[in-house]
């Protein structure tokens, strides 16, 4: 009986999964499927015109590049360490193959795990650096690994490399053809994973963090942790490619995993398209064509092709970057959409449904913050009750924004304590506070330039999710899908609250300033907060926008939200606030109920 119930449940889950896949199936997915199919039959169609070992090397290169796409495309981090990760996977797998009798696949997996370990360490080291420093740091790591391989012959096998024994692969004779098909299948799976991650909470959070770190942090996106995960995942895939490629090559070659490999992988990703799942693979094909061009040039000049290849690759990269970064695959997709626009997604969504409201009181006691000899905040206490708006007013430099930053966790207080209900928040990070129910919007109306309005709101819902982890996202478990539907409904409800439901599928960059302000309020609401901290929402707003904002705040009060409003516009304060706190030189100068009330 229980087996029957399990079978029924599994059947239902599979049907749901198929239905979900069908719903999200696009023309790009069809094209990708055809591409993988063609790649699988390529050795048979080409009839040996391209050697199978060259094809297999290309397939593993594409796998490593697709792995790098995780880092570059999702996290927006220009890693130049992928060659080092491939090398780590290769040499660890080679040593395990030589020293043990473990199956070939397991050896490759061990290599991948070792690379993921190095990737985690690298990700931890660069987790909070900007792009330029990440590039420099990872470039140094690549050099470090290359130098280590050169300096340690016991590790690298010296000039002759580390010869590895050949072992059956998934029960098959490990011919170059078997390696090629395995490489294609793994690249396809990795690309599929990339698509799943990009659409899921992990990808949206990373996209948000890469487009505006401050705004993402305010919404509780754990950017640094996500970056470390992206690095580790990217390194894992690179290491797997290395661990398998070394079995194809039958030798771990210390000269093969130098900085040039890292550079070429990054070129492949950027040229093919970092954000497109098959962009890196297309980039690898382009590199293959470049090597042929280099060979032709070399023959003309009477020198080795290796002297031209990096030069041509660099030229191509320059061309892509200087022409606005339009990589091959994104450009092709854009061109295709001119003829066949993508159908609107919002129409497919379930009806909006707001999450159950959380009613908690925020209490801050004697908050203090000093910058050197200057007391920015000095003994500020406040209490935000559910269903009320408290306005924080005062001249510039009075400490209003500092109070917001102390409350949200962006700055640690020198003194004082913060409680939400019975939970003390004082030592919690911003992300932890957002999960606890305290969220903040920023003053400068930041937004995530490449996300749609709906995706902005989804970033907020990610803080409320329990089953949105990387692994669940990759395998799209029933719990994940069920939670996804709820998250989409909540995101849609948040957009309705701020009057942006009709704009759900528009790029956020097309919104007006006031629209962006409301969008970030919606994203904050999507975190299902008990307390909302808003920094100057009316700045630069037209009269009709002010009316809209007033209506929004009134509705949020009715919903039971506790709101702290930092505002210069006293008319707006009078219209929406229940209590006004005036700050002067970091102290509360007055604490009055709204005179209008």
């Amino acid at each position, binding site marked *: 009986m229980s087996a029957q119930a399990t079978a029924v449940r599994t059947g239902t889950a599979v049907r749901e999964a198929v239905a979900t896949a069908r719903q999200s199936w696009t023309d790009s997915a069809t094209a990708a499927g055809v591409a993988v199919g063609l790649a699988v039959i390529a050795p048979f169609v*080409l009839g040996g015109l391209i050697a199978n070992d060259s094809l297999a090397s290309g397939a593993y290169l594409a796998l490593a590049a697709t792995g790098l796409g995780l880092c570059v495309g999702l996290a927006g981090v220009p890693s130049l360490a992928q060659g080092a990760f491939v090398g780590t996977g290769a040499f660890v797998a080679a040593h395990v193959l030589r020293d043990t009798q473990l199956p070939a696949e397991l050896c490759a997996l061990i290599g991948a795990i070792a690379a993921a370990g190095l990737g985690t360490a690298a990700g931890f080291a660069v987790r909070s650096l900007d792009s330029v420093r990440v590039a420099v740091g990872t470039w140094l790591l690549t050099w470090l690994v290359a130098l280590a391989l050169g300096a340690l*012959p016991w590790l690298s096998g010296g000039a002759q490399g580390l010869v590895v024994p050949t072992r059956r692969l998934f029960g098959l004779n490990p011919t*170059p053809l078997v390696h090629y098909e395995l490489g294609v299948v793994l690249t396809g799976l990795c690309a599929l994973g990339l698509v799943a991650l990009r659409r899921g909470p992990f990808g949206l959070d990373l996209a948000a963090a890469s487009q505006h770190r401050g705004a993402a942090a305010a919404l509780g996106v754990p950017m640094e942790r996500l970056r470390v995960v992206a690095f580790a995942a990217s390194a894992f895939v690179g290491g797997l490619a290395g661990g398998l490629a070394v079995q194809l*090559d*039958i030798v771990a070659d210390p000269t093969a995993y130098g900085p040039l490999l890292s550079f070429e992988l990054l070129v492949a990703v950027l040229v093919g398209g970092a954000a497109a799942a098959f962009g890196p693979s*297309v980039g690898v*094909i382009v590199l293959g064509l470049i090597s042929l061009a280099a060979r032709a040039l070399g023959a003309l000049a009477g020198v080795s*092709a290796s002297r031209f290849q990096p030069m041509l690759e660099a030229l191509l990269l320059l061309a892509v970057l200087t022409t606005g970064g339009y990589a091959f695959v994104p450009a092709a997709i854009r061109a295709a959409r001119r003829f066949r626009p993508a159908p609107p997604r919002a129409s497919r969504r379930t009806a909006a449904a707001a999450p159950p409201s959380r009613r908690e009181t925020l209490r801050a006691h004697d908050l203090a913050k000093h910058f050197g000899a200057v007391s920015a905040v000095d003994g500020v206490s406040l209490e935000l009750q559910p269903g009320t708006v408290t306005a924080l007013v005062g001249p510039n430099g009075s400490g209003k924004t500092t109070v917001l930053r102390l409350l949200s966790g962006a700055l640690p207080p020198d003194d004082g304590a913060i409680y939400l209900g019975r939970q003390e928040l004082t030592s919690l990070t911003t992300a932890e506070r957002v999960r606890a129910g305290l969220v903040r919007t920023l003053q400068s109306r930041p937004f995530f330039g490449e996300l749609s309005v709906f995706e902005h709101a989804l970033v907020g819902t990610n803080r409320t999710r329990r089953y949105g982890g990387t692994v669940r996202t990759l395998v799209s478990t029933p719990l994940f899908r069920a939670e996804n539907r709820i998250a989409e409904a909540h995101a849609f409800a948040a957009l309705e609250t701020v009057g942006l439901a009709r704009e759900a599928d528009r790029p956020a960059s097309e919104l007006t300033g006031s629209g962006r302000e409301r969008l970030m309020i919606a994203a904050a609401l999507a975190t299902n907060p008990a307390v909302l901290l808003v920094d100057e929402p009316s700045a630069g707003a037209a009269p009709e926008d002010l009316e809209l904002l007033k209506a929004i705040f009134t509705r949020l009060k009715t919903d039971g939200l506790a709101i702290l409003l930092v505002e210069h516009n006293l008319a707006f304060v009078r219209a929406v606030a229940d209590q006004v706190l005036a700050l002067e030189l970091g102290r509360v100068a007055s604490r009055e109920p709204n005179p209008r009330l």
Partner: protein
Amino acid sequence: MRATATVLVALSFVATGCGHSSSASKQQTILVVVDAPFSQSPYIGNTIGNGVRLAAEQLNAQTLSAGGANYRLRVLRLDNALSPAKAVADTRRALREHATAIVTDGTGVDATWRLANSKHIPICIAYQGGGGLVNPQTRPNVFRIAPTDHGLAFRLAEYLVPKRLKIALLADDSDYGQEGKAALADAFRTLPKSVAARITLPSSASDLAPQVLQARRSGATALLVWAQAPALAKTIVAARSAGWSVPIYTTPAGEDPFVRQQLADHPSWVDGLTFASGRMTAELGPAPWATFEAAYETAFGTTTVGVKSHGRPVIAPPDYAMYPYDFVNLLAAAVQQAKGTNPAKVLAALNQVSTHGANGDERGFNERNHEGVVDDDVYFARFSHMVFRPVRDDPLSSTLPQINQVR
């Protein structure tokens, strides 16, 4: 998708131009693949490539017949860029193209010999002398025609120890240097009193004065340097610029034109530099070598060193080109003995045939010995005025004539 298909089709069209031979020509072609570091070490790569090409052209000028068929030799040059993985890829290509033999500098042989042996394809090493590369029992398809590290090290020990010198053994940190260091350790194992110091030279250092000073402080009265040409040149500069006129001994790296080019401003610093190498002439006298050298220069021109001796340009004799040249002649003999290009038969025949080499020496292998240059063929030469001549204080070398190195 269409773009991907186009790319694949384009790749296939380009790939067709990469040396695919028809089945008709296969049967009458002896394909010799040269897998050498043409891009990373052009001097070595071209020396090996030219040696093979010269032999192939000379054989093609005659008619090579075997088993009733006529054969033409075709040479395919592949660049291994000193990368073992590239060497594996090149070997796979050689097998796909039905190569009869592979001639290499030695890069990646640890990985490639098994691949080649699966099709009974012989590999000839024409440059590297590392121990372990050649072993007729475990690697039946690997042959070498080049001085071995073992031979060079023991001949150097044999030559230097009677001079009662206190020798500082300097090896650079490259694989070449480290393999030499191991060979020297073996050669001097029973002669510890002759060794004043064992020093590693960092290849990447711009100045080796600290290492040379360390050797001087050890009480050394001679330096034996086993290093690539750049590190050797820097060692000489460090010693001579410090006013230390210690005798310096080295390996075939000493005759690399790079050393003399680096010291062109101080020709006297090169004077006295002594190196060990495979002899260019044999008991038959210099005539065979002169014939080979003339043919080489006719085909490829002279290799100028870039310095002058007594006002005349110095050329580098193509001594390392004679090794691949000799192997190709041996291969042709093996094909004739095997009456065709059946790989297993050719491989077996290589253990039986012999020819006269470019220097007049008898070249050949047998089932127990795949070394084409015996240790006794290592001689010593000393530089004077940018050219070298065999030394007079070694029994073998003293019998050898000087090879003309100016034009």
